């Protein structure tokens, strides 16, 4: 079973590390970046299977990153899950994202997402 690659874009280091911890524990290969600029840089070289994207980010907003990802055909296989505390923005994001998780995200939701990959994205 090949390892799935997950990119976590979250400016809060503590939360980012928890997300990473949960995904790691489920067998995903996880990378955490703290802002949009770094996320775009990272995405230039890699094609992650899952992108967990916070919308409230420094430098470049999550929505801009989402637009970039959707505009990039190389990244079309990536599953984008948006995480936000902002109900208004989540509505906007839901048009483009595959999945929208509203903060607080429960451990179950994270585990189910990881499970979904591990069970072959069916």
């Amino acid at each position, binding site marked *: 079973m090949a390892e799935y690659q997950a990119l976590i874009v979250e400016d809060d280091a503590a939360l980012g590390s928890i997300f990473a911890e949960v995904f790691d524990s489920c067998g995903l290969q996880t990378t955490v970046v703290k802002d949009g600029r770094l996320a775009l840089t990272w995405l230039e070289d890699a094609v992650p299977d899952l992108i967990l994207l916070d919308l*409230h980010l420094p430098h470049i907003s999550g929505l801009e990153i989402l637009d970039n990802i959707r505009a990039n055909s190389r990244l079309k296989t990536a599953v984008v899950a948006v995480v936000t*505390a902002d109900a208004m923005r989540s509505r906007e994001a839901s048009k483009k994202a595959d999945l929208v998780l509203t903060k607080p995200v429960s451990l*179950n939701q994270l585990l189910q997402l990881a499970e979904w990959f591990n069970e072959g994205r069916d």
Partner: protein
Amino acid sequence: MTLRRKTFVIITTILLLLVLFLYFLSRIILLNSYLQLEENIARNNTSRVLNALARELEQLSRTTADWAYWDDTYYFVQDRNEAYIAANLTDGTLASLHLNFLILVDNDGEVVLSKFVDLETEMETGPMFNPEEIVPLLVPDFTDLKGDVRSILQTSGGPVLATSRYLLTSLAEGPVQGRLILGYMLDDSKVEDLSQTLNTSLRLHPPTFPVPVDGLQPVVTAVQTNPAAIAVYPIDRNTVAGYALISNLINQPVLLLEVDTPREVYQQGLATFTYYILSLVIVGALFIVVTLLLLDRIVLSRLNQLSQRVDDIRRTGDLTLPIQVDGEDELSTLARETREMLSEIAAFKEALENSNLELEARVRQRTEELLAANEALRVEVSQRERAQEQLAAARDQALEALNLKTQILANISHDARTPLNIVSLRAEMMLRESYGQVTPKQKDALETILLSAHELLHFINNLLQESQTRANAARLHNALFSLNEVVQEVVALTRPIAERKNLKLNVEISPDSSLTYLHGDVSCLKRILSNLVDNAIKFTEYGEVTVRGFLPDSDHWAISVTDTGPGIAEADMASIFEAFWQADGSITRTAGRGVGLGLSIVKQMTLLMEGKVTVQSNSSGSTFTVSFPFRTAGSGGGV
């Protein structure tokens, strides 16, 4: 046309017609009467002449009788004694008797003796005509013993009057010895005598007299064909003529008698008629003049006077001018009534003017009052405008403050979520023993942390929602959704808390296809539902919480949340939907915390979605039901 002229025309016309009528009537009656009278007179005159001639013959007949019944004559015829002639038949004898001739005829009709005398010279003359001409025409009738025959005859010497008798003795005894014929010429002088005696103008014409006047011939012809008739015909303007035919004994016409009568009667009639008509015309004219004068004096001039007065009043507009008509009749009544009417009008006019003045004064007063009121109103309006401006400014400030508050709350909410998420995630992970085994006591503590974190999050969410709703920032974002999915999602989030309290959390969605897809604001519905479920779990210590999706009627869909909690006191029912409502001891005791904003948000959001929230409660539990119409802008209907 003035009344005067009309009256004149009418009266004149009537009189003219009357005169014409009378003229023709009189002409027919009067003149015809005169004509009849005239004809009668002419006829009488003619008869008179005829009678005079008859009388002449009668006279002549008596003379003849004297001579014929005389012995001397009787015997003379027998013996032709010359002495008889010498003694009795002198010229003077015949002339004194106005006789022109004497003829003696014997029984054989032979003329024994004939003697002719000129009455002017009283001398015997030669025969004026042949005696044989008249002897055969004077033959007596056999029945007449005296042989009395008289006739007017035509001879070669002119017309004659002749009578004949038998010759008898002086005792008038026979036998008859012959006849004696006496007579005279009906010459011009004799006719003249007759004319003078009868005081009439008569002429004798031959029976075939050609009448010189046009149109007279038929009359003469009529007389000629009927010997007994007398015809009358006017010859000219002055004379009317009567005609009669005189015949001999064997009915041969001898003479045509014409008797002229002056037309005095007719002319008198004509004159009378003319005077009559003239007097009629004069009287009529007088009548017209008098009538007009009287009418003018009694009516027209007074009417004119009245008209003049009224016209003066009309022209000057002065209603007080006097109107006076002399006398006591309809006209003066009219004048009086007109005067009274005018005085009433004047009074009315004055009243009207007074009223107008009063009205004007009132209008002026009202206008002034209105102007003052307007000014006051203007001041008030400007004050109000100022107040409104201030109010608007205050409102803007308040809105700004509210928006600011909402913004701050939103920021707080956002910023609080991340650390809260960290807390809850860490606690969950620890509970799952990701970091090694936990003791039951630690597990309890971790669960408390989780519950508190959840409640804190819930509180923050409600605070934010309340604030947004108040700022009217909440807008509906309608979309299609599945009721089952929404309910399951909300229930999934709260299930851990229910499980921790050992409460059963049931979901019963009606299988009706109307509920498969609904149209509405999903996040709103989620907030409503999560608040209701949270509340139900919060206030229920034992038993279960049941979420139902169903159709209360054909126009609505509904969700109800039923718990087996202690219920809500009747007194609290009215206020549970108010924000920051604090429950009384019975609830706080059980739940341990205030209800806060939950039900307030439920109510506001339900109303926002044009729905309705109801609650039923008793000691064995409460049921909150939210229902929404299918087809509204807020929620829309199922597909």
